[in-house]
């Protein structure tokens, strides 16, 4: 199904919120899924798998070695928040991160912040990204994990591609997100009908 990127971002944000993420993390999820789908990667599927599944952990500290079964969104946010490490030539090793695909957009944002290309690498998969641009090598970027994953900055990367303007989303995963998004809607009550109306009739 073809969706506009705004539709995808809005749906991912609402679904993440519906699944219980704080608003700021839900916003990150929306942007991340938008970024993935703009590159033809199955961000909607990844989020639809992640949200109802095991809630991974945040890193215990912001050093260079993150342990535990890790949440890609919490790790992604922290990776982005510590982008300066890539300018210093330092990287991060994450021991067991779930749904690693969801980490790519954060690596790209981190790279853009410090003007570096950031490589995200796990067994059989390698992606180099910076801002809107992405170069993927290796066939297995779409797995549930957990995987051991490394992030580091490089000077040059293989030919990267610019994002597209539409997202082709997998219908079943989209319906899953719709179901989660619906949890953000308040059920109608007699009181809300009376008090909450927007534009009225005449």
């Amino acid at each position, binding site marked *: 199904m*073809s*969706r*506009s*990127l*705004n*539709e995808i971002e809005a749906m991912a944000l609402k679904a993440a919120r519906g699944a219980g993420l*704080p*608003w*700021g*993390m839900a*916003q*990150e999820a929306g*942007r991340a899924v938008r970024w993935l789908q703009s590159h033809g990667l199955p961000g909607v599927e990844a989020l639809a798998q992640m949200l109802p599944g095991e809630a991974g952990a*945040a*890193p215990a*500290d*912001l050093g260079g070695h993150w342990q535990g079964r890790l949440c890609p969104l*919490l790790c992604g*946010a*922290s990776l*982005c*928040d*510590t*982008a*300066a490490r890539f300018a210093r030539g330092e990287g991060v090793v994450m021991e067991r991160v779930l749904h690693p695909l969801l980490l790519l957009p954060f690596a790209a*944002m981190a790279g*853009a*912040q410090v003007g570096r290309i950031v490589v995200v690498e796990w067994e059989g998969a390698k992606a180099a990204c910076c*801002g*809107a641009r992405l170069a993927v090598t290796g066939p297995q970027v779409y797995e549930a994990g957990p995987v051991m994953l490394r992030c580091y900055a490089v000077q040059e990367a293989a030919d990267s591609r610019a994002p597209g*303007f*539409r997202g082709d989303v997998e219908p079943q995963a989209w319906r899953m997100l719709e179901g989660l998004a*619906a949890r*953000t*809607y*308040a*059920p*109608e*009550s007699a*009181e*809300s009908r009376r*008090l*909450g*109306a*927007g*534009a*009225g*009739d*005449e």
Partner: protein
Amino acid sequence: MRAQGAQGGRDPAQVMRLSRLGSFHQSRLSFMRILTRRMAGEAWWFTRPEFAVDAGGVGHAIYCAHGPERTYSLVAFSHALPDEARSDRVIAQAWDATFALFDGVPDAADIDRLRANVPLQEAGRLSARELSLSRANRSVRLWEHVVARLASGAQPDAGEIARVGYLMRTTAVYGSGKMGAADREMIADRPEFAAPFQVEMLTVYLIRAFLRDLVEHMARARGADRAVPLDPAVARRIGIGNSTGLGMAPFLLNHPQLLNNWIAAREGALARVRALPSASAEELAVFERVLAQSIAMADLWSTEHAGQAARVAGLRADLRVLQAHVAAADLREGHPWERLFVWAEGALGEEAQECLASLLLEPYGALVDDLAQGMADDSAGFCIDGAMEVQRLRAALRRTYGWALELDWADPAQTARAWYVSEAKLEPRLGERAREPIEPYEQPLAPGRDAARLWQALQGAKGSVAEFLLAHPEHRHMVRRVQICADAPYAEIRGNTIAADLMPMDMLRCKLSFFGAVHFDPRSDRWVRICLFGNAPYPEELSAENADFWPYPPVPA
């Protein structure tokens, strides 16, 4: 693109108060005027390749706007809507007319596809070839009056037109990827869409031409040989109504950088004019003319909303005080506009002060119109600066949200409301926190309260923002706002958006004034009718001479 600052603009703590935002008026930098100036300046031309509407008013039409590089086509569908089905609610299911703006010129297959989807509005799907989706309902009273008069060979009554102002009112104009339409990113690099909401404004501009043609068509169907077309001078007075509810209010909160860029452009323009050492006779004449016309416009402004009616009455009186002051003052030398504005801040109410702020820009297109180019926000999205020390974050928070830290958030009146999206309507609503079970569904539209919560959480915190957010992901949305506001002085409303006494109308008015709307007619505190493109030249009339000052009505003799 970085957020726009305003060189010499007014203090955000003054400008960004809700009551002042709710007093804004259209200006040279309004999106409708940016559009008509550009189209006239580039000699856009307009065609109507199809008008296939039957005697019952059912069918479709295509209106093309040809720019220097590209053509855009309004595809209009006219329906036969029974009176009882006509609703201005955004959740309605049938309309008098439905529209899409097509990127290019549609072929027969495109029209078939659009006919299967556009009349369904939210229930249909668009493609990346469509830039907007819209619908409109008749003003039953004025529509019937105009059809009946024209059918009998007479022109409609000027008083009737002035009272209503429009033949149809739109209840939504969707752009930016809604219902599958093209995202803004697809078209943001086109010069004609560099300023905000140009797609939506072009859509409404072409809708207005279609409705004039449709009402004449219906009059011919009824009156045959007796029917006459609308007198062009009469047709000009007819705008497009717009009915806007709460759904628009969160927009300003959800797009802080965009709001900043709008306000910064207007503030920057005002500062440039106030800095002028002198004014020429021609510039003074333009100012005095638009001031007189603004008095005429205020006199035509009719609303039954008690609060707004009182403000309009104050505006009428204040503008006459201003006119008398201008007549007596020497405004040629000695920084005349600065002196006038400082006088106005002491002598006039907020409505008239903001009206003056808009009027001062009118003689100075060459000085201020370039600021329209900075009003969009096409940045890739704000990245939190995790390396910032929390002490600096606290200082930044205090600068933007000092007003919020002084409120007593334990007082139920300060948190009486909650923004939420209802299951039944899927649109933003404003509820009573204590009386409805809505708190678990609250949207993040209370930055003042959330800033106060963040302030509490930051007490005693040390280290970097990254470390703070690792421990407190629940504050991430608010940390982002604080950092955005640090570089974007006008990004945040300086008022409590969940207070018991919040007037959502102030937020609607602010946004609609940037569209260029006039004659705000609140039908409650929560929804408003406005008029767009009233007095504007129709496509075939558009020229450099009439492309700019059309919002101002003629001054009655």
